[in-house]
């Protein structure tokens, strides 16, 4: 089949038309796709009146990689490598969300230890994500030191990933009905190191930012989102909570073992960039609280669901050293065997650092999805950006963009 003709898009002609229209009082500026403050690849076409932004038009898709199409061709366990690469700032969170949907569809009941392990890696991912968001935004706004402190702590979180799975950046740690390897004492030691280092980093970063006159001047009252707008524009997570929508899936539609843990859901009603940073900083403290409890309460016992349930891949030791493990491994890996999925569909979501991360999963009875629709918080939050930035100055773009925490890999998928 002949390839379709590919034009260069609307942008070139748009720019030409604007050049001819000499009566226009506004001018157009491209922000990105390569710009240090976008951190990843996204583009804004700004219509400016002097330095005031009359209209911002996001142009996305530069990182579109067909992740949802791939999900229709990979098995549930294979797809974990792809979900890791969606929000690559907090990969374990994506894995938790993906297997939350798969396990709801297959009706797998996790063991208590596995639930705690998943909560622990979710909260580590949340800390990692919030630290990056706050640190990188501070970097863009000129506060370089806060960025260094927060990234230093993120290194310790990567050490935990490395110890638990063998990979620092994309752990690929979860499997249907369990995890790749059980937590051992060394993993717990590294988590304790993160927990011990956290209070000092938190104190340093919050003092460097929230007692910093320049930082406050640049984020207070910038990019205000009201509660009504937050709901109407489908916002969730810290963005909605900064605007007064006190909704957190961990509390309101509990999953895993969150009901057994004691934590608060911070919110503010200001709705500006400052509020979003404050909510994220407070969520860091709550994650720390959850982690301390989860480490203390971590139950003993098996981590994967029993091998008789036919879902979990046996770990390497069992697969190589026992007949049952080898048979189970073979049964699951061979494409014409394996577990059967229902011919049905399900929507399931978890509270990711950025908001509700859900999967609409349609299955056709095989081991891979028929339709793997992600509900990506970055995508939905970036659509609010033109509303937030309207009538602000060019310099405010980084303050608003930083507070939304747009991850382009998740934005474009």
């Amino acid at each position, binding site marked *: *089949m002949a*390839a*379709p*003709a*590919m*034009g*260069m*898009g*609307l942008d070139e002609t748009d720019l030409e038309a604007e050049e001819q229209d000499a009566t226009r009082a506004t001018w157009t500026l491209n922000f990105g796709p390569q710009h240090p403050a976008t951190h990843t690849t996204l583009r804004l076409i700004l219509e400016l009146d002097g330095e005031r932004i009359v209209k911002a038009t996001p142009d*996305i*898709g530069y990182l*579109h990689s*067909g992740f*949802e*199409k*791939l999900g*229709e*061709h990979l098995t549930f366990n294979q797809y974990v490598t792809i979900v890791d690469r969606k929000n690559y700032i907090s990969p374990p969170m994506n894995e938790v969300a993906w297997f939350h949907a798969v396990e*709801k*569809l297959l*009706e797998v009941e996790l063991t208590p230890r596995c639930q705690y392990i998943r909560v622990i890696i979710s909260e580590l991912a949340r800390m990692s994500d919030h630290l990056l968001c706050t640190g990188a935004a501070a970097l863009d706004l000129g506060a370089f030191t806060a960025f260094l402190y927060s990234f230093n702590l993120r290194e310790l979180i990567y050490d935990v990933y490395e110890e638990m799975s063998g990979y620092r950046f994309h752990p690929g740690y979860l499997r249907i009905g369990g995890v790749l390897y059980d937590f051992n004492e060394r993993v717990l030691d590294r988590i304790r190191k993160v927990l011990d280092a956290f209070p000092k980093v938190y104190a340093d970063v919050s003092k460097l930012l929230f007692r910093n006159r320049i930082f406050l001047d640049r984020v207070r009252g910038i990019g205000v989102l009201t509660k009504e707008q937050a*709901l*109407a*524009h*489908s*916002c*969730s997570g810290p963005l909605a909570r900064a605007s007064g*929508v006190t*909704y957190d899936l961990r509390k*309101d*539609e509990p999953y895993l073992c969150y009901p057994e843990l004691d934590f608060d859901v911070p919110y503010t009603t200001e709705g500006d960039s400052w509020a979003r940073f404050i909510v994220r900083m407070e969520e860091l403290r709550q994650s720390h609280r959850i982690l301390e409890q989860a480490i203390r309460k971590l139950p003993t016992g098996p981590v994967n669901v029993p091998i008789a349930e036919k879902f979990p891949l046996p770990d390497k030791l069992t697969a190589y050293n026992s007949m049952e493990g080898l048979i189970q491994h073979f049964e699951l890996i061979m494409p014409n065997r394996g577990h059967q999925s*229902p*011919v*049905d*569909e*399900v*929507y*399931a*979501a978890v509270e990711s650092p950025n908001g*509700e991360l*859900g999967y*609409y999963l*349609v299955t*056709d*009875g095989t081991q891979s999805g*028929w*339709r793997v*629709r992600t*509900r990506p918080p970055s*995508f*939905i939050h*970036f*659509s609010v950006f033109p509303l937030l930035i309207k009538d602000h100055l060019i310099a405010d773009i980084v303050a608003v963009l930083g507070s939304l925490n747009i991850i382009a890999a998740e934005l*474009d*998928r």
Partner: protein
Amino acid sequence: MSTTGAPSSTETQTETDPQAATLAVIAGVLGEGGLKPSRFRDNLRVHVPAGRLFEVLSALKASGFNWLIELGGTDYLGYPGPARASRFEVHYVLKNSTTRERIIIKTGVNDPDPTLASAYPLWPGADWMEREVFDMYGIRFEGHPDLRRILMPEGFAAFPLRKDYPLRGRGERHNFPRLTRGET
């Protein structure tokens, strides 16, 4: 005549159902005979004919479903389940932010000209999500203010998430026109 096939799960609607009030709202629009709820795990889904979609969504919004959580499409070409009258289905996951109730509205559209009413006038958050469904499946949303492709390039000719579009594409990447420095 409904546009969607019967869902595979058992149909239940009991007196003690906490979501009975919501179903009554939809029944108020469609009439008792038109209501087709189905449940799977903790999801409550209602299939709605494409022509009545906007009425149902408006009634639900008026009854407190103020949050459009998710909107997406699916192509059921060759799907093994019960026969469906329409090839594409679009799902709307709605949430009530005060009662925490969730409901999934599903509606079917068919080739050659799949068209639905846009949810943009009710929830502006539908803007990009509808653009993505259009981009990936070619389903048009009437009343959408700016229905353009969002992830694929403007000049792209196919709809990549359709089931008849191959995983490795049709050579678009290979044949992408390259500009040399002299041409720019």
